[in-house]
């Protein structure tokens, strides 16, 4: 049994449900038999990897779907052993270098070299290059990105890189300029709703339009999330009812509650409670920038017009420092403290104006 997300994933460019024009562009690109390095970017759940795989299939045929997981070991200059797992077929290899944290530079250098230095045996029937897919490029360290720069050009003959990331803002310009950028935008709510209904049809279920829309709206235009949510709904209750409750991810609810606590009361004691909750979230691997964004979104709905600007500014400031620092908790806390200060001051001024 597999999840709907995996089961109904389109596997060729023709079968894609949205961004069809882009799909045809990609097809044309590949039909020439060659393509430049690609930088595929877009929000999570928009179908970046799906498109990459469709592209590869278009290029190499169905052989790319025979995947295997391999363990690769690399040794750093300081003699530390790094283990990283790669997913590969005969034609491509996919790796997420940020799995090894700070040592990603070594992985990139070694891996690409080994892949690129091997020529394909039968160049007549096969393409003479392999494809290396690097995921989460935006989480690569600067060193690794710099290391990537030269390798990309050097091994152009034998390998193509497809980089995959959420945002190009953390990719250095040198790399951006070496790649053809492909933006995969998130599907619109209508598209998601349509896809959900199609999927349900394939599962021979009957999904009401209202519910499909409701799920699509709650999914933040994230198709993966939408599909998972609808599957969860299916498990909860079938036949569907249009006003069925759609469960949100628990961490989001938790975050919302936390924001509620902050709004409710501003005091050092409350800050201490909130701190414990933030720790809880961090312990469950929720990334700090997601936390700060989620908090901001919730907090800002409770703010007056003038305040909004100030709060967002503070959030941006602390989010930036968060990226520069080590311990997320300090920065999150600082933001919350700042918000409390702003909020409290606003209220006190409001009361003063009354008298």
């Amino acid at each position, binding site marked *: 049994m*597999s*999840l709907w*997300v*995996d089961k109904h*994933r389109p596997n060729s460019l023709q079968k894609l449900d949205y961004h069809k024009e882009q799909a045809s562009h990609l097809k044309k690109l590949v039909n020439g038999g060659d393509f430049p390095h690609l930088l595929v970017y877009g929000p*999570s*759940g928009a179908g970046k*990897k799906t498109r990459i*795989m469709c592209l590869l299939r278009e290029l190499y045929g169905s052989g790319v*779907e025979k*995947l295997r*997981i391999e363990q690769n070991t690399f040794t750093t200059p300081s003699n530390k052993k790094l*283990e990283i*797992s790669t*997913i590969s077929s005969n034609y491509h290899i996919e790796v997420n270098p940020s*799995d090894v944290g700070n040592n990603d530079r070594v992985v990139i250098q070694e891996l690409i070299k080994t892949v690129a230095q091997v020529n394909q045996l039968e160049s007549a029937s096969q393409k003479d290059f392999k494809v290396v897919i690097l995921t*989460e490029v935006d989480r690569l360290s600067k060193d690794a990105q710099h290391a990537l720069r030269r390798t990309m050009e050097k091994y152009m003959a034998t390998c193509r890189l497809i980089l995959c990331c959420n945002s190009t803002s953390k990719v250095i310009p040198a790399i951006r300029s070496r790649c053809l950028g492909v933006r995969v935008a998130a599907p619109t709510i209508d598209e998601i709703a349509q896809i959900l209904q199609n999927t349900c049809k394939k599962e021979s279920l009957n999904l009401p339009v209202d519910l499909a829309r409701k799920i699509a709206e709650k999914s933040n235009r*994230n198709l*993966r*999330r939408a599909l*998972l*949510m609808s*599957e*969860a709904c299916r*498990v*909860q209750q079938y036949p569907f009812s249009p006003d069925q409750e759609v*469960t*949100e*991810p*628990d*961490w989001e*609810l*938790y975050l919302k509650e936390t924001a509620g606590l902050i709004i409710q009361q501003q005091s*050092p004691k409350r*800050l201490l409670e909130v*701190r414990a909750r933030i*720790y809880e979230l*961090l*312990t*469950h*691997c*929720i*990334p700090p920038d997601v936390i700060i964004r989620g908090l901001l979104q919730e907090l800002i709905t409770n703010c007056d017009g003038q305040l909004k600007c100030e709060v967002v500014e503070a959030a941006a400031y602390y989010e930036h*420092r968060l990226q*520069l*620092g*080590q*311990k997320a*908790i*300090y*920065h999150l*806390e*600082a933001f919350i*403290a*700042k918000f*409390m*200060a702003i909020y*409290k*001051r606003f209220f*006190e001024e409001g009361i003063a104006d009354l008298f």
Partner: protein
Amino acid sequence: MTYDVLERNVGSVVLLVGLCEQVAKSLKMSRLLAVSIDELKDQIEQERQQKLLDEADRITAEIHRTLLHWLKLWDYVVFGKELNIKNKDKKKQNKDNKKKKYQPEVMDELDKYNRPVQKIALLNGPPGLGKTTLAHVLAEHAGYSTVEINASDDRSAEVFKNKLESATQMKAVLGDDPRPNCLIIDEIDGAPLRTDEPIGQKKKKQQGGLLLRPIICICNDQYVPALRQLRQCALIVNFPPTEPAKLAGRLYEVCSHSDEVDFEVIRFEQLKADMNTLLALCEKTDNDIRSCLNTLQFIQRKKKELSLKSIQMSNVGSKDSNKSLFSLWYDVFSMPRQKSVVHVITCRFHNIVRSAHASGDYEKIIQGLCLEKYVIPNIVWGSTLIYKNMNMASDWICFTDELYQYINHMQDYCLMPYIPYVVATFHLLYASNQRPKVQYPHAQYEALFGLIVFDKCSIIYNYTSPQTEMLPSTRKYLNEQCAVLEVLPPLMDIIQPTLRPKSRLTVVYKLRFPIADQLSELGKTWMRLLDFLIQLEKMRRTESASGTIVQKPEPSHKQKLTAKPITEEEKPIKDFFGRVIKKKTPEPKQKKVEKKNVLTTDIWFHFKEGYSNAVRRNIHLALLVQQDYNPRKAETLKMKF
């Protein structure tokens, strides 16, 4: 050498004096080893010893008494003297009167070899209170010749063992010193960990070689791991830090008229000083007697007057001491007393920065600060001030964090000295007069630990681990972050359907992420739920059978067309005349409970109950409880009753 130069470079001078001291000590040692080196004995050293002794006498009289008492207990073994039993009584009275505070009680009993039960005395206290001096003086006083091992000696296990044996079991024969030895192991906590073994062995050796001489150990920190075993069999004598007023008073005495003490070279009599200044001095040196005297000596050489300013300005005396984390946190959050010198804001600032610098473990310090800042400010300030402070503090912490990251990343350690300033900021923002309750910051560690645990047993771990069970095609589209944020929460709902309607209100919301254990646990919960449902169904059926509940009509899609059973209506049988013949329905045979005839079966047995006085007898519980119960006795007892 002029003293101007000296003062400019006081640090090295202090070092020099320390060196002198060490030299003098080792020289003294060699004297004890019966080599006559009286000429070499440094007079300054002697004088200092004398002074210190003086201090020790006055200030630490209690400790003095305790230790001497313990030493005297050895008299029986070493000198063969009878113990003074009166002493014991007096001691008891003493104890009753005072209800002593810190000092341990000397156990007066002797063991089977007539040694005191506590075989070793462990003197413990901050530096410069005269521990070494006290030990020497007392040992001499009690009639021992002292053998000292300190950090300047080689203290490898082998040497240590030899020395221990020679000191405790032998006696100087050659010299004119017939007194038995008393071993003083100085600076025992500084001993390298390997000497842990010999110290541990000491106990064993006591059984083998039998320790017959007193050993006095001296340390600054009694909780060093090397001393753990030793502590159990030792008399631990704590030197409490001296009260500054007391010490200052004493110093004042020394300064103003030192005639009564026999100083040969240096006299303090000309030095003019007032109590306040001396108090400041005490505070600065952390009540270290040695350091105080040293400082005084230097100042006296230069000028005739001791002013508050000269104390504050000079960097003499402030020690490079390492404060514990807790005391540092305490210092940060408490305001120094009004009277003390360090009340001035610049002084406070420098003090805090210095001690933060000295303690080194910045990360811990900052964590502690971070926790503390929420606990303190509550009533006193207006809310705006609270937030102003809080924001400032958190900004500072963020800045420090950033700095840290930069230092670690670039390995650029020249920025390191700027880190402790955050501590000073906290002090200036949050120091208050109420006593802070400092707690150890656990949260960070717990969070980290939790993260590791979570990492280890979750699906995410499965994702990253080499022995992944995930299909490559599944795994391909999943990364850690999206697994946590998007896939796992609904996945729990998908694989764990709700079997009964839960009321949203009562369900306590909790973060639940599928952890591997939980997944295997899932099966069990399922079973339980199913079981519950089955029970429910059963109950429903029995109820419906009894007719109280109308069975619900089947849902339409499940309804099947079934042929109506044609039942032949049983028409009453009539006879020819139309009369109803009453059919004799045979009465349903009542099931006869077959009484098995025992005798017909092949095997049978019969339990013969009987009553016999020969076997039965009344026994009271009390008798059973009696350990040596025996029936005969019981019988007799019963007879008696």
